[in-house]
């Protein structure tokens, strides 16, 4: 019984603190009630493109729309949404273009896989060439040009 009352008191205290904090920071929208939320907030706003000034992130953009979007993200975070839910929300409104880091989906698979494929092809070709040269060098050890290469 005593524990329950204590918990209740603690919860009430936390709630009042939270309310107080969010009200206090309402004017400075870049401050979140906890360092964890603040870190997630900063991470998120750096990952979204400002749709009006497309080479800037939401974190860096001075335009009104970016401010509205930051407010929206802050509200979603305070409502307890996960980072993924917030990203999904933004993508559902603005498309993948809003993400600075494109996700791995069917349409972008080539984008992520191409460097690996190119590297693989290059390695295969390089290995083939080296082996061939080694074979030539082995059959004709007097050829300086090839043994040096």
């Amino acid at each position: 019984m005593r524990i329950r009352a204590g918990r209740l008191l603690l919860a009430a205290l936390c709630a009042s603190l939270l309310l107080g904090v969010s009200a206090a920071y309402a004017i400075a929208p870049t401050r979140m009630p906890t360092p964890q939320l603040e870190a997630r907030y900063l991470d998120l706003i750096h990952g979204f493109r400002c749709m009006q000034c497309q080479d800037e992130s939401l974190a860096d953009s001075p335009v009104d729309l970016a401010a509205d979007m930051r407010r929206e993200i802050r509200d979603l975070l305070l409502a307890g949404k996960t980072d993924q839910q917030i990203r999904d929300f933004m993508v559902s409104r603005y498309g993948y273009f809003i993400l600075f880091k494109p996700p791995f989906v069917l349409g972008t698979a080539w984008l992520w896989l191409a460097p690996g494929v190119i590297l693989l092809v290059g390695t295969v070709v390089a290995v083939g060439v080296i082996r061939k040269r080694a074979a030539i060098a082995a059959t004709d050890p007097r050829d300086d040009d090839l043994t040096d290469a």
Partner: protein
Amino acid sequence: MSRLRFIIPLVVFALLVAVLGIGIRQSPDKNIIPSPLIGKPAPAFSLPNLIEPGQRVSTAQLRGHWYLFNIWGTWCVECRVEQPMLLKIKQSGVIPLVGLDWRDDPNDALSYLKQEGDPYETIAVDQDGSEAIMWGAYGAPETFLVNPQGIVVYKYIGPITEEAWQREILPRLPLASTPAAGSSS
């Protein structure tokens, strides 16, 4: 075998040209970003009515007929450009215009409409800009064509021109609608 090897770089080059060509074709204009809302239900909302204070404009009221959802504001220069075209569309009676007054002072909006004419059937007020985000707006004007089932059919970015109306919007409407608007000019 040696003949075939000679062709490989050419094939690779042709492939590269093809990929780059597709890339150039598919991103013609950085200012026009395709909306993921097309083919999806229009965002549900219930917002204050600009013209009739105390009343609301909601998605429920808009169900059952075609409408153009036009995002505008008195601060928006391009919106003034499209204003005559919007009035023309209203005159045609083909499709009602539903306005979203974005980030605006309602008093400014009312005096603007008094001066320039009001092309809208009804206007919802989005003073803090959160509704515009729901629609994926990133500038004004932006116009969405919504069908009677409440599905977004098409989005037009920038001031609606005679050409956009004739080429993009009218052909998407059912044939019963009479293409009378903008027959002059």
